[in-house]
């Protein structure tokens, strides 16, 4: 970067908003220094949550948040050649790491408190994910609240104990969510929202003068629920960062919010979603209904055509789309973006069903899976 003073291995320990300065520890020599600022941007991110159970600080228990974590895991596998890994948590990180560990030929056990992986997605999607795991030799183990880790004399985990039984494991990945790094901001007087992340606005300001915030440490506005939420994702962080940077430099930018889009891959299965699930839609007071369809990703006679499942969530009274989730082995992750646009534009399922999508046999059927799903959903909308 040009003319930007980048100081790595420097930990910021205090913000003094009255004196407009920060306290920084140089981790290389443990020296503490104060730096002054005119404008400050808090982009302190989030950290992996760790389960606080006996043995949880063992050397071969890993979390995965950044490059250093990834290198630690890779080096451990290279050096110790573990045979079995236990992953705690069936969210995106846990699921993506199932694939990574299987590629390294580790016997992989995925422990999940719910009876399906990706518990925040719709059941139909989670069932597809479970099938992909099983097809690829991952052992999915449910309703096993971990109670403790059993360690050997080297301080390394040898097994995971649950309330019912114990499982031998040569290494553990804890993938049980993240916690926003808000402590130094909060100590300086920055307000937090109800999610526990730093409260902000569409200009990425905090309540403190000349202090902005961006990324996984702060909240973001969800345009569908019209609520401030904590959605720690890299694309959002970049957009918020760009807005904060522009405004801190004297500009006048706004970041109006997100609709809640994301995608991930579990072995060959693509999973993508946008907007609200059924439960959230109801919690926010919508008269939510849903439509599930399965359709081919291309015209059926084309090589490589694969089944995909689409679930649309919509308001039964207005017909407005509230959310969409998809899973399939081809053509899923990009397709969701059309529905993200529909959410931004508050389109109804009837309007979506009549969209002019590009058609050719290698890409979709004349009626794209989205059009089929929207057309079927529109029949459930109440006509007054």
């Amino acid at each position, binding site marked *: 970067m040009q003319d930007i003073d980048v100081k790595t291995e420097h930990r910021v320990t205090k913000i003094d908003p009255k004196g407009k300065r920060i306290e920084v520890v140089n981790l290389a020599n443990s020296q503490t220094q104060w730096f*002054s600022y005119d404008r400050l941007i808090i982009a302190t991110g989030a950290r992996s949550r760790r389960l606080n159970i006996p043995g949880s600080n063992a050397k071969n228990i890993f979390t995965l948040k950044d490059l250093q974590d990834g290198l630690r895991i890779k080096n451990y596998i290279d050096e110790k050649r573990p045979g079995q890994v236990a992953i705690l948590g069936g969210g995106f990180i846990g699921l993506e790491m199932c694939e990574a560990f299987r590629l390294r030929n580790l016997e992989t056990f995925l422990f999940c408190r719910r009876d399906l992986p990706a518990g925040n997605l719709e059941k139909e999607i989670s069932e597809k994910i479970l099938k992909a795991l099983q097809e690829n030799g991952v052992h999915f183990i449910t309703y096993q609240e971990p109670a403790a880790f059993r360690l050997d004399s080297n301080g390394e985990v040898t097994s995971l104990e649950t309330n019912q039984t114990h499982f031998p494991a040569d290494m553990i990945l804890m993938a049980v969510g993240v916690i926003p790094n808000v402590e130094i901001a909060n100590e300086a007087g920055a307000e937090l929202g109800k999610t526990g992340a730093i409260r902000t606005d569409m200009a990425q300001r905090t309540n403190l003068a000349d202090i902005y915030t961006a990324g996984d440490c702060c909240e973001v506005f969800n345009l569908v629920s019209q609520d401030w939420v904590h959605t720690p994702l890299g694309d959002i962080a970049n957009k918020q960062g760009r807005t904060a940077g522009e405004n801190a430099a004297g500009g006048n930018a706004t970041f109006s919010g997100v609709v809640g889009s994301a995608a991930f891959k579990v072995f060959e299965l693509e999973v993508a979603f946008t907007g609200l699930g059924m439960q959230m839609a109801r919690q926010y007071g919508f008269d939510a209904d849903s439509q599930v369809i399965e359709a081919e990703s291309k015209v059926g006679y084309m090589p490589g055509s694969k089944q995909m499942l689409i679930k649309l969530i919509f308001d039964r009274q207005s017909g407005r789309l509230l959310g969409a989730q998809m899973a399939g082995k081809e053509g899923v992750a990009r397709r969701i973006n059309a529905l993200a646009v529909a959410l931004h534009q508050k389109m109804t399922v009837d309007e979506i069903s009549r969209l002019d999508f590009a058609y050719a046999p290698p890409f979709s059927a004349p009626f794209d899976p989205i059009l089929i799903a929207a057309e079927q959903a529109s029949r459930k909308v109440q006509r007054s």
Partner: protein
Amino acid sequence: MSRRAKLVILGGSAAGPSAAARAKRVNPDLEVAMFEQGRFISYGS
């Protein structure tokens, strides 16, 4: 001559570098410093 305005950014993963680059583009005279506790920047995106 007045001193250059100083922008300090805490964090060097995704939001921090985006903010630094944008701020510099909007106001090239701005003095920008970015602090990161880890060894790498831009490590997540």
